């Protein structure tokens, strides 16, 4: 993992609301290496979905304020929806949250696929064999193409969506909560399919967005933790789970009950307080109010710096 695939620098994305701008992403800088699967974890409202979306398509309320996104040394025009059309689906693609519920219920899946491809100027016939090969790989019969989405189970729909999103071998795939509405056994199958797609070269790098740290621990090479619109920590998976440096990551990991941990033996604690409002975020470290280690210096904003090879932390105490 030497070559860098995705490079995000100083990215700021705000949501316009009547009460002012919500600073959902504030000065986000990171890189994803070629072939890397990065897990993006955090609680609701921390900006993880916003980050995923801003790499592909900004919706009407989102405003690109500052910063650049480079994919394979080419700058993505993320603020320009029309110009992004050349990159979407081919170079970078997203499986949005609830994608499996977003399939057109009045179209057969095959027809929907065809329409989707043709809207991007790709003839369906040219990819038909490859599509069938990939359906087999994920264990779906060819006749799913003649079925309506309602006839498929959640796991089948999710696998169909995964095949569809990677059909043109994008360089980067963003998978947003792809496993969250599924049963545990299906969840595992879907997660392993993602890894398999990467290994087969259908996608080169991936960002897997989830609120479930234990899931990305299973499949990701590295994990990035966000808090209140900022990056808190990024490191190789084992480092994040075994020796996190940011107090937020430490508290988050220690608040997760595991199979085998009993209340009577070890009482876990949550993180007191709640995240700050992003309408008018406090100056300095945004975790300061909930942080047990906070001291005077935390009123200044800590930079997101590399403390060890591949381990980035935004904390004065790290």
């Amino acid at each position: 993992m030497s070559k860098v695939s995705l490079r995000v620098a100083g990215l700021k994305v705000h949501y316009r609301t009547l009460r002012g701008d919500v600073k959902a992403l504030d000065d986000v800088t990171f890189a994803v290496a070629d072939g890397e699967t990065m897990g993006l974890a955090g609680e609701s409202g921390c900006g993880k979905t916003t980050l995923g979306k801003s790499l592909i398509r900004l919706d009407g309320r989102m405003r690109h304020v500052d910063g650049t996104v480079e994919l394979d040394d080419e700058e993505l025009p993320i603020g320009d929806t029309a110009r992004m059309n050349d990159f979407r689906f081919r170079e970078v693609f997203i499986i949005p949250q609830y994608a499996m519920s977003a399939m057109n219920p009045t179209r057969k899946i095959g027809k929907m696929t065809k329409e989707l491809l043709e809207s991007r100027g790709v003839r369906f016939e040219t990819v038909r064999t490859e599509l069938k090969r990939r359906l087999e790989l994920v264990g779906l019969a060819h006749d799913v193409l003649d079925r309506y989405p309602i006839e498929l189970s959640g796991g089948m729909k999710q696998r169909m969506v995964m095949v569809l999103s990677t059909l043109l071998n994008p360089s980067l795939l963003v998978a947003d909560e792809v496993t969250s509405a599924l049963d545990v056994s299906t969840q595992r199958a879907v997660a392993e399919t993602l890894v398999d797609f990467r290994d087969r070269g259908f996608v080169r790098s991936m960002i897997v967005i989830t609120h479930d740290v234990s899931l990305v621990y299973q499949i990701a090479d590295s994990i990035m933790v966000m808090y209140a619109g900022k990056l808190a920590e990024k490191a190789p998976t084992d480092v994040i789970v075994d020796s996190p440096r940011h107090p937020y990551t430490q508290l988050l990991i220690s608040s997760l009950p595991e199979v085998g941990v009993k209340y009577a033996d070890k009482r876990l604690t949550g993180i007191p307080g709640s995240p700050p409002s992003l309408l008018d975020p406090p100056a300095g470290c945004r975790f300061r109010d909930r942080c047990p280690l906070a001291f005077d210096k935390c009123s200044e904003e800590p930079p997101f710096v590399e403390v060890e090879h591949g381990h980035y932390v935004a904390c004065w105490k790290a």
Partner: protein
Amino acid sequence: MATTSLAGKPEAERCCTVDRVSMVYKIGAFGGTDLPAVRDVSFEVRAGEVVSLIGESGSGKTTLGKMILRLCPITGETITVDGVDISTFKRRRLKTYYRSVQGVFQDPFSSYNPIFKADRVFSMIKDEYFAEVNAAEWRRKVAASLEAVRLSPDEVLNKYPHQLSGGQLQRILIARALLLDIRLLVADEIISMLDASTRIDVLNLLADLKAQGLGILFITHDLSLGNYVSDKTVILRRGRIVEMGAPDRVFGNPLHPYTKSLLTSVPQLHRKWERVEAELAAGRAGLTGRCIYHERYPNGDGPVGLDAERPTLAEAEDDHFVACFQADGEETC
């Protein structure tokens, strides 16, 4: 009804006993097809005990909770709470029943009416059950109940649901249940919508309530949550119990193939899937081709239920029961 349960506890300590209940939903355009959601399920919740009901979607776990709350009819045999059969309760008797049994559900945001303040749930309890209590006395009672769920009354009273976090809303619902003198709480997926940093607080709260003698039926799809607070684990599959017992036995030494496959799929921290699989495969070696249930009851057609005549579960070790390894029970193994 048997006079002693399998674990030999006297009748008095039992809080809720579910005895061989079933539920069949009619599906299809004219209700012509039967969908058995719960089949011959028996278990009990004692006072001061958390029982985790774990299953994937469609396992019947929510239906069981609804039956105990009388939100759907009880078919099959009976459910008794404190020794009284609850299946025939109507109106006044049912209202009295809800003084002792209450439920909290998955989505805290849709449990509230968004156009009213969140504390309306308290005044509704007052109007229904405590009309004679005077206002000052009631305020004191609400405050005490909020403190029991570790919320400060100033923080949460007089606010609308959107001004409170999911964890706070869920705890207000528990506080509402505590205003009544409840003996049993049915908690259906109450923390699955909460963030990691707040869900553990709600779990700890359940543990505290249990210590005060409340019986809790904790319904979840998440095995790691089912383990943390519970005294007994019940694993359901397609409406049947496949394995039941003390959590450290069920999770430490899973016997049923379905329980094992669930355990190998749960994402765990500090243990990768391959490792869990390898460990379980090692433990499974001695069980290949065996079925503990049929070893115990070779005729197979044996008994059904927790009471001794027709158990569907065989006792594999102390406080650890397992069903036939052909999990559907229709095929023979």
